[in-house]
């Protein structure tokens, strides 16, 4: 790797997730230091710390705006969870579809709908938190991830408590396979929310 080229991913993360009003100047400063011989590790550390510092600063300046955005996001999320529990009950799923190509198409369509809902939630959070939109969208994503991890852990705990006799191999496979699916789904959801919240837009440097 060329030591004088700044890590592209760190720059991308800083540009899209950093919410300082001087974000472009921060990126420029880090690039200048990198071209003066600072290491990639130093660049990464500075980029991550700049992102965190900008979140903390914004959270201190506009706590109510951020809370309003996160609350609005959760309200839409709960409304969606309620609606989907009514619309996609097992009884509303025709049995003749099972095992056909139509089932796969339906699953893909459903996935698209779910991702669109995540994007819509991102948009709602962004619109209701005005100038603090980046921190609010990230805050909303962090709360959903925490909620997801707790929910997943609780589900597996209850399953193994009431389910089959415990065996380490099956337990690890269960966690890895289901956790893997949940992880991929969560990453797709995060990307959709970031997209809806406008955090993936490409902006030109000042």
């Amino acid at each position: 790797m060329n030591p004088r080229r700044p890590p592209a991913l760190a720059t991308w993360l800083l540009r899209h997730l950093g919410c300082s009003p001087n974000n472009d100047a921060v990126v420029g400063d880090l690039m200048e230091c990198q071209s003066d011989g600072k290491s990639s590790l130093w660049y990464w550390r500075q980029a991550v710390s700049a992102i965190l510092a900008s979140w903390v600063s914004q959270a201190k300046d506009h706590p109510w705006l951020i809370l309003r955005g996160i609350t609005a996001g959760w309200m839409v999320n709960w409304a969606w969870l309620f609606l989907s529990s009514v619309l996609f009950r097992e009884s509303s799923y025709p049995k003749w579809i099972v095992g056909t190509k139509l089932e796969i198409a339906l699953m893909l369509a459903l996935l698209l709908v779910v991702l669109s809902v995540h994007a819509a939630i991102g948009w709602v959070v962004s619109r209701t938190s005005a100038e603090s939109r980046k921190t609010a969208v990230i805050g909303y994503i962090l709360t959903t991830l925490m909620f997801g991890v707790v929910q997943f852990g609780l589900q597996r705990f209850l399953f193994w408590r009431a389910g089959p006799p415990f065996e380490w191999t099956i337990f690890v496979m269960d966690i890895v396979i289901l956790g893997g699916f949940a992880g991929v789904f969560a990453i797709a959801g995060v990307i959709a929310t970031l997209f809806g919240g406008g955090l993936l837009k490409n902006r030109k440097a000042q």
Partner: protein
Amino acid sequence: MNEMPRPNDALSNFELMVLLALIRLGDEAYGVPISAAIESESGRDVSIGSVYAALERLETKGFVRSALGEATAARGGRAKRYFEITGKGLKEVRHTQRTLVRLWTGIPKLEVEKT
């Protein structure tokens, strides 16, 4: 009697260091030299992001003002943002200095031992 600053205007330790670095650097004060000056004098690692966070707070309080400077290729075409201390900022630094000196004096534990 000295006018007391409003509680929100009180300077944190780091904000005071940033302001002192700004005064030292004069016209050349932007993110990189400010963090380098604090690093060299304090001997601690300084994050450029936290320097900007402090500068933004100080700008909101009216203690510094900023202006965009030149963009260079080494900065990926991004402009520098230069900072300058305002009259209000200078007054606040003097007030903090006086307060610290008054608090410092007359504490035997902090007096330098004569060799």
